[in-house]
């Protein structure tokens, strides 16, 4: 077991190295003119040359690659072409807001998705199974950015119940300063007992959270359903039934436990997708996270920022994959 985990971590490191190499290729080998963006459109040839030297573009490619690796080891993602600030620093500022959104969405996915999946497996081919199946497929078929707009239309424009965007309203922050302990706004307000701010922040997170949780809810429900159905078809379940064990007991005690490993894996993997979905949604809700960051980086072709976010996303993905594999490996039925 330990040996497997060690091997798995080692192979993850190789994959990270590969990911870094590909991002290097995208950034440096694909044709683009970073020095022009760094020095500005009207830069003189001398300024351009200086920019090339400052960005290290004058050196041969293999050397650039080694320098790039060295910088990454020190947590240096380069400087944004737009703000001339270190990308790593900017990412650090934007990550907590995104993290808060994704974590909350996942809580919803687990709390709603798993019961929905269990229920549809239990009542397979009944009306509610069809409704839930339709819902889960529907949820993965919706363009997230459009759902965001649709929810704004209903809850802001028509019903006037929820704010259109932002993480907290300006009026609320006039009287109370915004606490900064963990960086997760809801948690910080809770810890410091600022309930007026908490209430305001909560109202702001509802719409973006619902928007990005639809996909994982649908996915988790579908996966739970199919994992459970597969297990319910196995011999030991039939055996249990023939001994006269009640269906409910078989489902909750024997089948569910064995299907949760698969579900946990899918939850971990769908988190990667949700992260990317967040990128499309944040800008719409003016949510100050990495999504808004990459959206503005894309419009100004700020490639160190784009590459930085890509590396961050891929690293999250690799770690989640690793966790998923370790969860699978800890299942005693899996022989390694």
């Amino acid at each position, binding site marked *: 077991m330990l040996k497997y985990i060690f091997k798995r971590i080692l192979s993850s490191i190789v994959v990270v190295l590969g990911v870094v190499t590909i991002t290097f290729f995208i950034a440096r080998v694909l044709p683009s003119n970073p020095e022009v963006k760094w020095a500005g459109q009207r830069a003189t040839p001398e300024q351009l040359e200086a920019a090339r030297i400052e960005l290290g573009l004058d050196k041969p490619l293999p050397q650039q690659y080694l320098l790039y690796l060295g910088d990454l080891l020190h947590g240096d993602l380069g400087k944004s072409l737009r703000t001339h600030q270190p990308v790593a620093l900017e990412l650090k500022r934007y990550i907590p807001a995104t993290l808060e959104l994704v974590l909350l969405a996942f809580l919803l996915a687990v709390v709603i998705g798993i019961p929905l999946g269990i229920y549809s497996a239990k009542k397979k081919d009944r009306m509610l199974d069809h409704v839930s199946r339709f819902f889960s497929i*529907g949820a993965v078929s919706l363009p997230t950015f*459009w759902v965001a*707009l*649709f929810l704004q*239309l209903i809850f802001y424009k028509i019903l006037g119940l929820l704010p259109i965007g932002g993480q907290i309203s300006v009026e609320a922050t006039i009287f109370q300063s915004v606490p900064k302990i963990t960086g997760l706004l809801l948690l910080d307000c809770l810890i410091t007992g600022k309930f007026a701010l908490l209430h305001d922040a909560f109202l702001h997170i509802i719409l973006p959270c619902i928007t990005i949780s639809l996909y994982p809810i649908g996915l988790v429900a579908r996966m739970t359903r199919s994992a459970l159905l597969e297990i319910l078809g196995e011999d030991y379940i039939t055996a249990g039934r023939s001994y006269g064990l009640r269906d409910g007991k078989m489902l909750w005690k024997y089948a569910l436990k064995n299907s949760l490993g698969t579900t946990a894996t899918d939850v971990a993997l769908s988190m*990667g*997708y949700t992260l990317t979905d967040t990128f499309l949604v944040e800008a719409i809700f003016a949510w100050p996270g990495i999504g808004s960051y990459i959206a503005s980086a*894309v419009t100004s072709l700020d*490639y160190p920022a*784009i590459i930085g976010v890509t590396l961050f996303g891929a690293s999250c993905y690799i770690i989640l994959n690793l966790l998923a594999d370790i969860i699978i490996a800890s299942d005693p039925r899996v022989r390694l």
Partner: protein
Amino acid sequence: MNNLIQTLRPRIESFRESLYLLARNKLSLIALIVLVLLVLAAIFANVLIPYPQDIADASHIEIKLQPPSAEHWMGTDELGRDIFSRVVYGARVSLRSALGAVGLSLLIGIPLGAIAGSFGGWVDNVIMRLTDIFLSFPPLLLAIAMVAIMGSGLNNAILAISLSWWPWYTRLLRGQAISVKERKFVQAAETIGTSRLKIIFKHIIPNCISPVIVQASMDIGGVILTLAGLSFLGLGAQLPTPEWGLMISMGRTYFPDKWWYCIFPGVAIFITVLCFNLLGDAIREILDPKTRKK
């Protein structure tokens, strides 16, 4: 010819059976019908749409941003163009691009998977590690990074999507190839000295390809979504192409007051992707012996 029909007969039989199973589920049947209609709409878009000149950058400022009416079923946009015409034509843009992206991924993925599976050893190792690396990028993010650097545009977006999508097909085909490689006819071909490449392309790929094609057809929905996402960010289709994601992005400026501009293209994306996914789900259930109903 007769021979061909003979060899195809069992496949046709099983196809017929699958079709029957598919038709038993009403939801899947509806999805299939809607998709056929969509494909027809995409093919005959030019003839069907009421205002053909509006798919380009025609402008009738005097009727801009009008709500849905009898003349303009989905209202008009900021240049007074008929949104219904643009949405219908958008089906052609989206389906063609999605087919292009999936086709290109297959073109990369299938040969690599076949080579990995049938050669084994270090070749297999290198190719599979490469797929691992590509699969560790969240798909949309890799596409965003590539298009952002290569320059926005529908063709670059299609290229970027296929460059991030192919590893799935490589994995799937490799798994098939490993089992087909052990079959008698491949060994027979080897014994009579057929070249490796000929075996791969003539014997292994044709016998491994069906699950990959099934998977690819199920992926079209996801590709349409990804493409719309890229266009929404301004990286995919460019003006005045009537692409759904781009239309939503343009409509945002006038949202939520002129809601119809954003809402209708989104409904079109939803219906299309939903039908592909419903059908894909049904096909998966039919093909999966574990859940196949008796």
